[in-house]
């Protein structure tokens, strides 16, 4: 039972991440690999504030998105002129630099030791330290993020974003300041991603830089694409499948070291076949 709670928590956290990044990738059509960086920024903001300054995790749920959003605003405005592949490369660069800085800045981020002993959230004397209570917390945050992303995709702001994705030049001719819209989407996406990071840090109580690498960003991509890009429902389904299916494979009973590689192999082939036979994903409407 505890194990199922654990899986539910992970699905919720990755659901948050996938929804948030889907807003950037699916909504605005910006190819970003910086997902893991904002995930990490959220986690580190919570961890540092909680362990060094004694903040409650609930307080960091408010501060961390602001930090991530501000950083995204700065990064995004620097990268504003890049499109498509170039934007992807630039965000990859940002992620790699973030990772290296975290690993080397020992006095602030714990360096290669990471940060241990991150507290669980507590409110009015109630501590979310059992898996079941944490499931509730994670699901509530997930619902909030779902609501926000649905609201955005139905709003006029969301419609402009979608139009930018389809034909940015045309929209620019109509007088929309497309770069501002993209920057907004990038920052909101980063801020929501940070929530996933806060929950993750508080749930595991330990983080280090190895948790926020390119592989994590690519996992988010895979979730969004598998479920169906530009569909909020798709991002949720993708997160659910890519967390639960590998966990299920764990129990089929291969030798342990082999099982990890087999998972990786299946995951790789899945991507290839998906691209060949169903590039819009399971629930997708929008074709990549």
């Amino acid at each position, binding site marked *: 039972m505890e194990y199922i709670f654990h899986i539910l928590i992970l699905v919720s956290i990755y659901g948050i991440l996938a929804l948030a990044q889907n807003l950037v990738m699916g909504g605005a059509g910006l*190819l970003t690999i910086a997902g893991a960086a904002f995930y990490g920024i959220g986690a580190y903001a919570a961890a540092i504030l909680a362990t060094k300054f004694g903040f409650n995790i609930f307080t960091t749920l408010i501060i961390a998105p602001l930090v991530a959003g501000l950083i995204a605003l700065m990064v995004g405005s*620097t990268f504003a*002129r*890049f499109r*498509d*592949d*170039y934007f992807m*490369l*630039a965000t*990859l*660069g*940002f992620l*790699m*630099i973030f*990772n*290296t*800085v975290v*690993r*080397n800045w020992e006095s602030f981020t714990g360096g290669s030791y990471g940060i241990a002993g991150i507290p669980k959230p507590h409110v009015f004397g109630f501590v979310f330290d059992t898996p079941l209570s944490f499931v509730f917390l994670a699901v509530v945050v997930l619902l909030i993020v779902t609501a926000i992303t649905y609201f955005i995709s139905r709003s006029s702001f969301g419609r402009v974003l979608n139009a930018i994705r389809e034909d940015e030049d045309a929209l620019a001719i109509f007088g929309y300041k497309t770069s501002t819209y993209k920057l907004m989407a990038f920052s909101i996406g980063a801020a929501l991603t940070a929530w996933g990071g806060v929950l993750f840090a508080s749930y595991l109580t330990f983080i280090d830089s190895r948790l926020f690498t*390119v592989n994590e960003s*690519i996992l988010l*991509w*895979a979730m969004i*694409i598998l479920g169906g890009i530009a569909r909020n429902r798709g991002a949720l389904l993708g997160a659910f499948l890519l967390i639960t299916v590998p966990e299920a494979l764990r129990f089929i009973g291969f030798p342990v*070291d*082999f099982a990890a*590689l*087999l998972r*990786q*192999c299946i*995951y*790789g*082939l*899945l*991507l*290839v076949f*998906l*691209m*060949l036979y169903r*590039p819009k994903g399971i629930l997708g409407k929008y074709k*990549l």
Partner: protein
Amino acid sequence: MIFWQLTLYAISVGMFFSVLAMGWGLILRSAKFFNLAYGGAFLVGGYMMFLFYRMWNVHFVFSILLSLFGSGLYMLLSYKFIFSVLLRRKAKSLILLIASFGLLTATSAILGMIFGNQSTLIARHLSDIYTVNVFGAVLNLAQVVAIVFVPVLIFVFAYIRSSTRFGRAMRAIEDDSEVAELVGIPKDKTLLQIFFISGTLAGLGGIAEGFDLGLIPTSGLIIILPTIVATVVGGMQSFWGGILGAFILAIAQQLTIVFFGGSWVQAVPFVILIIMLLLRPQGILKR
């Protein structure tokens, strides 16, 4: 003395990435997508060399030829069964990129299952790779071969590109593949050849890595990122751009280790990349 030694090291690392960037750039310019499966060909070449040369004691020259053929074939088959299908469908470059990433992941995992996660070295005895004194600095055999042989390879390629039928077909496809097809250039056949050649170049890199440092299944992804950066920094649309980028990268890495320390080296290619994209997004060299 340090300066001379580090210069030689930078040159040999630059040669290594030149070969990789040259092969990767071929696909980028002709098929117009970021082919991460290139890292898979790198691994296939290296591990095949290990299998033939070290495990089965095949003669050095035969082992190299077989491994290069193997890595070329890997790339060719990937084109035949995956990328050509997607290209014909006019899929977006993102789809091709993701498919190639999937292929790289699967290839690394399969090689990991066969050869294990620990470092695999090709040399039968490490002491066989003896050292040579070059005006007071030291280079080992593998580095000397790289510094002597790679420039030859580069110029042969430049010649093929500029003066042969295949080279002209290649350039026509790079310019505009649809026009090229209209004037009777066999696009599919030329692309097959390009993928094969690109694969052999990746395989060559893999073999060099296996002799010099040892291969691990994740080497494919580790090596492809700086290769991409070198190509983009030097100029994606230019044949010489990737080579220039490779040397810039090699020099920058050495300087970082000397002035900042080894733990910052991973970030260097990407700092250069971002600066470059901001200042001159088309890369240093234009077409």
